[in-house]
């Protein structure tokens, strides 16, 4: 394993629910190397999603350090987190979360528009990635005109378009049938192994986690074992 792209050091996240303190993460440490495909596995309520949010710079830990691509994200302000995500992170959602009023190309190009990339450049990039995802015929389709698998492939293309150092995927196949799930996981594997991206995937399904290079099992806010 090369240098670590993600490094979490005894991360705690404590939520306050009224008077009660809920410990979502209880001193979790994890290193993810460049080009690795890591699955974070745990049941619902185990704290895996909370952990992913920390790693992706969506949320800040109560205590502990999260260093991603050399940046201490626990010290960043909301605005700086946005800039950080623009630069380093791609995201794949469980419910695809494409913008309904935009077609496939526009959806894929969206993160580039947030960075101020011109329309012609970002359209070219989007078309290239959609072709790579095998969606030549769906370039001009809106999300409602596509199947779940197609939508998720658009979602993956959208995550890749900014050429991120790390891609985070939160239950990326949660809404898909088995056949499509396997398709999507193969694509994700390709992305990591052929393109050399780092991928962190959260799932509750141990079988799906089998596609990853490494599995980290979380239970009650702690890493119980890795394999």
């Amino acid at each position, binding site marked *: 394993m090369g240098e670590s792209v993600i490094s979490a050091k005894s991360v705690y996240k404590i939520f306050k629910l009224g008077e009660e303190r809920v410990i979502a993460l209880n001193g979790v440490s994890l290193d993810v190397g460049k080009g690795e495909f890591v699955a974070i596995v745990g049941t619902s309520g185990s704290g895996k999603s909370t952990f992913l949010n920390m790693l992706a710079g969506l949320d800040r830990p109560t205590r502990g350090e999260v260093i991603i691509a050399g940046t201490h994200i626990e010290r960043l302000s909301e605005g700086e987190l946005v800039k950080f995500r623009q630069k380093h992170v791609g995201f794949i959602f469980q419910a695809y979360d494409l913008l309904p009023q935009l077609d496939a190309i526009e959806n894929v190009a969206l993160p580039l528009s947030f960075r101020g990339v*011109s329309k012609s450049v970002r359209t070219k990039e989007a078309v290239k990635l959609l072709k790579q995802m095998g969606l030549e015929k769906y370039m001009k389709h809106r999300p409602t005109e596509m199947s779940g698998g197609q939508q998720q492939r658009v979602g993956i293309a*959208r995550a890749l378009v900014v050429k991120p150092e790390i891609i985070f995927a939160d239950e990326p196949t949660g809404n898909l049938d088995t056949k499509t799930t396997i398709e999507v996981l193969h694509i994700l594997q390709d992305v990591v192994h052929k393109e050399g991206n780092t991928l962190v995937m959260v799932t509750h399904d141990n079988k799906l986690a089998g596609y990853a290079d490494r599995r980290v099992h979380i239970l009650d806010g702690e890493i119980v074992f890795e394999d």
Partner: protein
Amino acid sequence: MRFADKVGMAWNSLLKRKLRTMLTILGVMIGVASIVTMMALGEGLNRQSLEMIEEYGGLRTVEVREGNAQSVQSAEGDGASGASDPTAYKLSESTMEKISHLDHVESVYPTLEFQAVIVSGAYHMTLYSGQAVPIEVLRGMNWEFEEGEWPKEGDELKYVFGNLVISDFADSRDNIVYWNTGKTVDIDMMNAKMFTIFDVDAYEALHSKNNKQGTDTGNTDNQTGSAASGTGGTGETQTASPPSAPKKYLVPTAGVLKGGLDDYNQYSWNTYCDLEAIRKMFKKVFKNKPIPGQPVKKNGKPYPELFYSKLSVIVDEIDNVDEVQKAIGDLGYQASSNSEWIAQAREQSQSQQAMLGGIGAVSLLVAAIGIANTMMMSIYERTKEIGVMKVLGCGLYDIQQMFLAEAAMIGAGGGITGLLLSFIVCIIINKVTGALTAVIPLWMYFASVVFAIIVSMLAGYAPSKRAMSLSALEAIRNN
């Protein structure tokens, strides 16, 4: 994020909810239309009142009359006459010069008011306010003529009569005038031979004598004869010192101002002529005797120059009238203008306009609440969408600006359509009332759209702030 992209995103999300967007725009449209229409009504009223003032004598004119005679007299009475010139506050050429050098004064012209008696056939009239004004000034006025036109420069003395002057003529036999009978005398004002007697005092002396005799003897023909022919009073023989009959002069008519007997404006009762022409006439008539109405020196001799009755000072702008009026007053002359009236009329029309605008503003306020409501709803609906955009690296201010752009577009749409609507409404109002009752001021075209955009953006501000501060995390969890 590029500005065009933000606008594009905003446009997309408006298009996605067409019906709701249309309804929101409709609200703004009605709000803007009611404000603009109300303001246009106010402006129409304003213009009408200013036009009325204009009819009663210029908006930018300050009228100057000679300074307080009492103060001049008392100065004389104190025996300080050597120090104080009795003509100091009279209106002379040098006064005109002085006033024309004041700030904001565009031009000054003099008026010499004179009295005369005009006799034509069996009719006569006393001209109480003949107005002698430099002919180039008169020619510059765009007054309409019933007949004829202004005399030319350098012409001999010619009159221009106001449309109501004819009703001043009395029948010399019975002294019955228009006001007694409701019928005007049978004179062709343009072509009748009209004789003018400038030495009114002499005429009056003779006239009253004849009148007395007339009442004594019941012979009115005497009177007529003396007035019409001027060959010498028939009553002369009965008086110890008979007043010599004043000389009469044939003065042609150059024109009659437009209007019937029911039309009145500030010119209707006046008779106008060229100042230079009357100056020459006076020289001929009075030679070196004093002219009636003009001041005389202590020894009873006239001054070499003619003093004016009135100076009309044209001010460059309405707003400066007050200042000029005060400056002239400070010089010791009596200055008056319509400025108080104008100020009052303006104040009144402004408060009317404000009230009307306020009524219109209520509906725009309702529309603004509508915008805020629509935007709020749309943000709740799009919570997840906003969260996703945030996660994908959309800047916080970009999100806010997208929502503000949406609000601005609603405002612009409502502003432009509202303006068109009010334009149509104003045309209809003007058609129905048959006058310019509703006038949309030029600045309104621009201001109403800008105002609608600003109001919409203000209404959209709180929702946009909310969208900005939505937690990305909660948003994406919101399945």
